[in-house]
């Protein structure tokens, strides 16, 4: 039992850390009522996922076990790495996640623009008050007018 814990939890601590941040931010999207706080949770979720994937490709010496390898250098080729015995880090996860970072930034910008329009129409950013206003206007039979004209 102790062997399983040491091998699967202490040696692979990077996956557990990334999973912890994913759990916290995913619960923030569901629980919080303010619309802006939900957007912050979405951005943190995407960043933690990229951390999980990029840490798959790291090559080097571990803290808890010793394999006798030198740590990995960044994947920019230089000539003295052959003499000293360094090993390059895997460049494939970096390549595939760069486009993901840019997609995350563009999505956050469009979502903020939508929140601005919601604020101009309802006058508030809390989720429960928006639902109350919608129910009120349905009972009266009118439409929602702009709140700051």
């Amino acid at each position: 039992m102790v062997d399983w814990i040491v091998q699967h939890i202490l040696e692979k601590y990077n996956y557990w850390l990334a999973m912890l941040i994913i759990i916290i931010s995913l619960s923030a999207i569901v629980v919080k009522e303010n619309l802006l706080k939900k957007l912050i949770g979405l951005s943190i979720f995407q960043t933690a996922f990229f951390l999980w994937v990029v840490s798959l490709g790291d090559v080097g010496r571990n803290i808890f076990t010793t394999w006798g390898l030198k740590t990995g250098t960044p994947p920019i080729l230089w000539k003295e790495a052959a003499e000293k015995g360094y090993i390059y880090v895997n460049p494939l996860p970096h390549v595939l996640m760069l486009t993901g970072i840019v997609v995350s930034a563009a999505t956050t910008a469009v979502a903020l623009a939508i929140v601005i329009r919601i604020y101009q129409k309802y006058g508030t950013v809390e989720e429960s008050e928006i639902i109350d206003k919608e129910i009120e206007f349905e009972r009266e039979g009118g439409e929602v007018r702009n709140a700051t004209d």
Partner: protein
Amino acid sequence: MNIPKMNPLTWTAVGIAILLIALSIYAIEDLPAFGDENSAVNKQIKLFSVDADGLVESLDAGVLPLEIKTKIEKLGFIEGPTCPGCQNENYPSLTEGNYEIQKIEKGTWEGGRLYTEGGWDVLIKEGEIFYDEFQQYYFIDEIDGELNVYRYNWPVRVVERTEEETAMINAVTSGLADYRGYDTMGEETVILTGAIGVILLVRRRGRL
């Protein structure tokens, strides 16, 4: 004992957390350890093992033995139509003259990788229109009287060949702008669409 009154959404969040923790305990045994050099992501994937009775001599002579060849062809390397009347499959084939076997000694340093054990490399020539050279496909190893067959992964090729093919020393940029250039071409369109989307949402009568 009363369950304290909480928002029902909080109970949903607790349920999601327990589900994700259970899923990660189930899946943690397949992931490689942090910093392993010979894991499947970084270097090679093990396919199968074969008893080495008399196959080492034929590998030294440069011919792939028949048992390994039939097992590889079962995994999908076929030349010719798979069924009568179907189209011709375009996979690279293992017929004579299309591949080459190279022997590698233990401890050689080649293009960013240190070979900790000796073995044989199988190089196959793909039949592409503008690029007609040998590429690395398989790596055969001998341990305890058994031959193991591995399949190389893509980062091995990038680190070995990026200096002579693209003249860029940055492996990440050469992967983004040269080997995977069409993905980045579509990505730029996404950025432009994001900017247009924000313009359409926010500007009203007076400004645009």
